């Protein structure tokens, strides 16, 4: 479990993290989402014990990171931003060093080493210098380092940043596979990641908590939530007809591809009436889609509109 309690960090007059209180439970993948410079990394650095909070505190598995830092660090696996490591070491030397620092030894330690190396597919590069590895491999080494001691809590700062789509997919699968009994906190500014990974999302900007919800709840906040969109040639007629439907609030036409989006009035369902109308008109439509809501739009709305308010 990760808990932060009014966690605050100031640099002079600038407040990087402002009274942030979040909570992640076992079995949960909590996404920490925010624009660049929102305070995600600073918050994680305080939870990891690398930075001291200006006020407030954080707990990892109940251990306060300030009064009991060693216990908190033992419970935590942490991938810092950019996956730093010792470039002059080989992968094997590096992981052995981490194992020693974590007090892993003997047969169980060796088994765990083999297991992690296998899981992250590092067998072939074990004796290569970390400096010579590609970005994706280096990230995998960083992940191996973070999970080597099989921690109950995992904190990953932008684990897929800078990876190609295949590598991103592999990292997400790995996180997914580890999620069951663990508490995982993942920071990201990629919205696709939220869908692919997280079962809860915390949005922060300028260091402040702006939203704490499931991805579905966030989507429901979108003005696109429940809207119906379709492409149809000869749309001028249908537009007028659609506007007359009592459930419809407004209609927008994409100026580029002519795709029509119909927005419902509050609480109305419009897929069926729209479909019926189109059929009655005898219009040919290639496909019709019920929108779940657009996270990017919600994200933009939350992080830009709310920003100025106290």
């Amino acid at each position, binding site marked *: 479990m990760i808990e932060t309690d009014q966690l605050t960090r100031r640099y002079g007059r600038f407040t990087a993290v402002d009274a942030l209180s979040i909570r992640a439970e076992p079995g949960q993948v909590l996404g920490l989402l925010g624009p660049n410079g929102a305070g995600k990394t600073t918050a994680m650095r305080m939870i990891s014990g690398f*930075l001291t909070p*200006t006020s407030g505190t954080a707990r990892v598995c109940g251990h306060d990171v300030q009064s009991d830092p060693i216990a908190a*660090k033992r419970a935590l696996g*942490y991938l810092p931003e950019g996956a730093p490591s*010792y470039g002059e070491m080989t992968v094997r030397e590096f992981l052995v060093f981490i194992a*020693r*620092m974590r007090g892993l030894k003997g047969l169980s330690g060796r088994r765990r080493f083999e297991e992690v190396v296998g899981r992250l597919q590092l067998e072939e590069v074990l004796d290569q210098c970390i400096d010579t590895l590609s970005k994706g491999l280096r990230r995998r080494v960083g992940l191996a380092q973070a999970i080597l001691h099989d921690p109950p809590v995992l904190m990953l700062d932008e684990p897929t940043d800078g990876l190609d789509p295949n590598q991103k997919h592999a990292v997400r699968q790995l996180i997914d596979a580890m999620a069951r009994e663990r508490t995982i906190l993942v920071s990201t500014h990629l919205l696709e990641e939220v869908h692919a990974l997280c079962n809860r999302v915390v949005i922060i900007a300028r260091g402040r908590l702006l939203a704490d919800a499931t991805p579905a709840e966030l989507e429901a906040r979108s003005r696109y939530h429940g809207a119906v969109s379709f492409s149809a040639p000869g749309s001028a007629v249908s537009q007028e007809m659609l506007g007359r439907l009592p459930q419809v609030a407004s209609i927008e036409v994409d100026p580029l591809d002519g795709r029509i989006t119909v927005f419902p009035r509050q609480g109305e369902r419009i897929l069926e009436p729209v479909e019926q109308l189109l059929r009655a008109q005898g219009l040919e439509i290639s496909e019709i889609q019920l929108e779940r809501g657009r996270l990017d739009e919600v994200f933009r709305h939350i992080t830009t509109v709310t920003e100025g308010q106290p």
Partner: protein
Amino acid sequence: MSPVQAIVRRELRSYFVTPVAYVFLVIFLALAGILTFYAGDFYERRQADLQPFFAMHPWLYLILVPAVSMRLWAEEAKAGSLELLLTLPVRLWQAMLGKFVAAWLFVGLALVLTFPIWLTVNYLGHPDNGVILAGYLGSWLMAGAFLAIGACLSTLTQSQVVAFILTALICVLLLLAGQAQVVDFFQEALPRRLVNGVAHLSLLRHFEAIARGVLDVRDLAYFLLSIGAWLTAGVLLLDLRRSR
């Protein structure tokens, strides 16, 4: 294995996979030899001891020890591995101690490798090997004090060059404070007590006493306390850096 041991091993290893170790060892051994035989009049003195050899050490360390210590923290801060190290379950003092011990062992190795000069002096005459051993001990302790200063100052910056210059500056001040000429110069301008007090702080006085073969508890304590104090200061600076 304790975290301190793990850090010592990692650090020592990193010296030898990079050119740092070899460059240091070659230059240290070459300079130690050259300075002893040419500047120190090793033969002309016609005495079977290693006084000229040890007399050069403070000045040799002045250049070479900051070169070893400058990277201790500055390099990690620059490369970002500091975040990794300090989020492992290790206390700041353990990390500091591990890094210091590794550097000190490394300089100790350099000293051990000067053994041919000890063989030479034993071949040429009958030196007092007890005094020579004391000289080595004093030299190693002084290197330790320099390293502790460097380890402390290396926490202040991400730039190894800055760490080098700061360390060399502090070390030269601490050396000069005990030089007879410097002491005499200030004797006229400043109160005698102050001058003597500062002179007692000098590394040089305590080193010269040990190198003469006089193992005084006060000199040993001086070096060990210096090392402890500078390392503690370094730990405090590291801690301060986390909340800055």
